């Protein structure tokens, strides 16, 4: 119920009633007076009479079926004072005129003549009136037909409009209901989550880990769905990965010295964090360990995840992962600690000595660590042969 505009202690009842009545008028639509209705009706009629307002050829068909009006041929009722004595023969006419006084001795024909004359005049005027009336009726019939025709059209249009509006209303109502249900469901789902500020450091750490795990799980689930969604793209990626691996193997055969990093090496801590399982010896000569876990970088992690997915999931993915590298099949036999996923878990497994050695070592495998990638870029498999064997 909308509120009223009168906001005062001193209410005016007549003002409130006026507002209520205006609201009723708004609800009911235009509240026409009799004069307004007449005016509207006349306007509509004028519109109908406009030939451009006619919307179809029904009227023409009607006109074709109706013959043009022709007034009927009526007999001549003319009666003048000499009509009684008229004759085509001249002598006879003369004799009648001569003997008229004698005739008038027997009776007076003048009233008869006058009456018949008046009657003939009346007949003529009546015939003329009747003809005019017929013509008018004919015109009115056409007008009525026009009006009826347009009324039918308007009614049909209105009916369609009403149907459309009803359907739209139903649609809106259902959408509104759905939204309300959705809002209610969301409201019921929302749970109060306390802020992290109050938690101790250890718990915060745990929470982060849990969040990370949850996030990983979610990503894994998404990726598990990926083969179904992006199978063709994935096959291309794998094909490209295999080609890159082959190229890397060919390049590694001459055993070139470790190339200087193309970009500035990451800080030691970062490197340590990213390469937790690198032994001191491996770090000294710059080659990855045979038993080493993934060297570093998110690319490797993603690869590992893909491998895990291959183990858990579809056989085709596993076969692809093992394609060209039989050792993978054996390496895939155990899950290992890779399932922990995060770099932090791996860092925790390193001993302090290892960490110190790694820190002292020259920037070990620069490319996977430092190669920055666009976050939006799809993960491309890196040509890293060290990543294939897993403990």
């Amino acid at each position, binding site marked *: *119920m909308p509120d*009223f505009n009168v*906001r005062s202690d001193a*209410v005016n*009842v007549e003002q409130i*009633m006026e507002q*209520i009545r205006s609201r*009723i008028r708004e609800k009911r639509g235009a509240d026409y007076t009799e004069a307004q209705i007449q005016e509207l009706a006349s306007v509509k009629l004028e519109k109908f009479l406009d030939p451009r307002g006619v919307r179809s050829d029904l009227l023409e068909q009607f006109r074709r079926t109706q013959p043009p009006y022709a007034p009927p041929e009526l007999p001549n009722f003319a009666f003048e004072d000499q009509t009684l004595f008229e004759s085509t023969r001249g002598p006879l006419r003369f004799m009648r005129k001569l003997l008229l006084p004698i005739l008038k001795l027997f009776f007076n024909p003048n009233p008869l003549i006058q009456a018949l004359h008046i009657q003939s005049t009346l007949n003529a005027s009546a015939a003329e009136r009747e003809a005019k009336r017929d013509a008018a009726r004919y015109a009115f019939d056409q007008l009525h037909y026009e009006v009826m025709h347009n009324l039918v059209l308007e009614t049909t249009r209105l009916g369609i409009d009403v149907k459309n509006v009803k359907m739209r209303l139903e649609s809106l109502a259902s959408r509104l209901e759905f939204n309300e249900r959705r809002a209610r469901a969301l409201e019921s789902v929302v749970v109060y989550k306390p802020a992290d500020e109050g938690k101790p450091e250890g718990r915060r750490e745990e929470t982060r880990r849990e969040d990370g795990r949850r996030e990983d799980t979610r990503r894994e689930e998404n990726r598990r769905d990926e083969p179904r969604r992006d199978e063709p793209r994935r096959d291309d990626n794998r094909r490209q990965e295999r080609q890159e691996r082959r190229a890397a193997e060919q390049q590694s055969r001459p055993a070139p010295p470790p190339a200087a990093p193309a970009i500035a090496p990451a800080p030691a801590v970062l490197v340590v964090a990213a390469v937790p399982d690198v032994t001191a010896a491996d770090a000294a000569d710059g080659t990855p360990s045979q038993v080493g876990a993934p060297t570093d970088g998110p690319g490797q992690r993603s690869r590992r995840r893909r491998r895990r997915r291959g183990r858990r999931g579809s056989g085709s993915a596993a076969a692809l992962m093992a394609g060209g590298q039989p050792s993978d099949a054996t390496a895939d036999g155990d899950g290992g600690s890779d399932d922990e996923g995060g770099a932090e878990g791996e860092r925790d497994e390193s001993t302090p000595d290892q960490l110190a050695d790694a820190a002292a070592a020259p920037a070990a495998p620069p490319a996977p660590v430092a190669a920055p990638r666009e976050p939006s870029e799809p993960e491309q498999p890196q040509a890293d042969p060290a990543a294939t064997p897993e403990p």
Partner: protein
Amino acid sequence: MKVAVVVQRYGQAINGGAELHARYIAEHLARHAQVEVWTTCATDYVTWRNELKSGEERVNNVPVRRFPVKHERDPLTFGRLSEKVFHRTHSVADELDWLEAEGPTCPGLVAHITKHAGEFDFCIFFSYRYYHAFHGARAAGTKAILVPTAERDPAAGLSIFAPIFRGVRALMYNSPEERAMIQGIAGNAHVPSVVVGVGSEIPANPQPQRFRQKHNIRGPFAVYVGRIDENKGCRELFSHFNAYLRDRVGKLTLVLIGTSILDIPAHPRIRHLGFLDDADKFDAIAASELLIMPSFFESLSMVALEAWALGKPVLANAKCDVLKGQCIRSNAGLYYESATEFAETLRAIEFNKWIAGTLGKNGRQYYRDNYDWPVVERKYLDMLQRLSSGTAPDGFEPLPGWMDRRKATCPPAAEVVAAAPGGPSSAPEMTVPRPMGPVSPPLPTRPQAATERSRPVAPPRSTQQAAGRRPQGRSRRSGQGAGAGR
């Protein structure tokens, strides 16, 4: 001062509007003057059957003298004559026959008035349309004061009543609309008159919760109090309320209080509680959101005044000029002319609490300014004083002779009333300053008590006590002129 109150029925168990009005006036005037009530033995206003003993008795310490009704009403004769005088050209004799058929035909009462009116200063007649008022006023002559309690019904247009309206000493109207109508019909603007109305016995502490518990009523509700009759607009009320229920927006229940002679629609949100006593009635009004008055014809709705006294808004039928005028003048009620307006106004009051509250507040103030007992008493006493100090007019015009009475020259009464000025009066009612304390009676003394006239009259002790019992705080507002708060 001795005042006689003449009314068609009288008693504590009689709750008709004019009868209750007469009893309240008699009891309140009894605090300032010697009051005696003359009435009939009838209790039923349709049959006028003698059901009470004739003779003297006391009702609330007011002496009441009853006279037997000569014959009961014959509905067929009364209906036939009503049709004739209301809708056809007729004679004065027809009108007198109609009056005789309407009743209560009580020649003993008229004879008593003729014999004893001289012993009283004034005779106050209630309800112009009955036998006792017509013949009694003529018998009382210059001592007759009339409280017409006239509605806008065809009876007001009968030609026999115009000389009564012109011949009485004074007229105590209930509303400006009633005064405008009677002055338009009878041309009696020269007769002293005042718009008074009547107060009510409003309880100090109504108990709305008690009412809800007693009748198991929950949720908001609108209340109708009165006879549930088609003539009171109840059929239209049911139709409009059903339309309101169909919209399913409002939550109000309609609670009906009163005897029903009409079929009440079966709906869980229409509750009929039957006849309730005054305490329950006031509790019900206090518990309600608003009072609905669907009546088409009212000279003054006491229930509406009671609702206003309790701070409740009123929704009235706009076809009744009096109710509409009161709503406009008081700014304490809304009115409707159609089902749509009924639903909208009902919702406006239901959903806009500030409107309901303000209307109720205005109603309370309107009641205090115009219809609280000190104001009503003051108006009566002022009028009596004014009349006793003035000279009496010539009296009533004589009735036509035997031959003239039988000439069918009187127009149909319905046409006369239709031609009378109508519509609500928006001009504020002329009010007297509200007395500070209990109304002291500067009453005109009787000629034999002229020696006491010079002495100031102290308010009687009983008056002070009665004023102390007044439930609606008289002492809260002191000496402000009427309408000062607006």
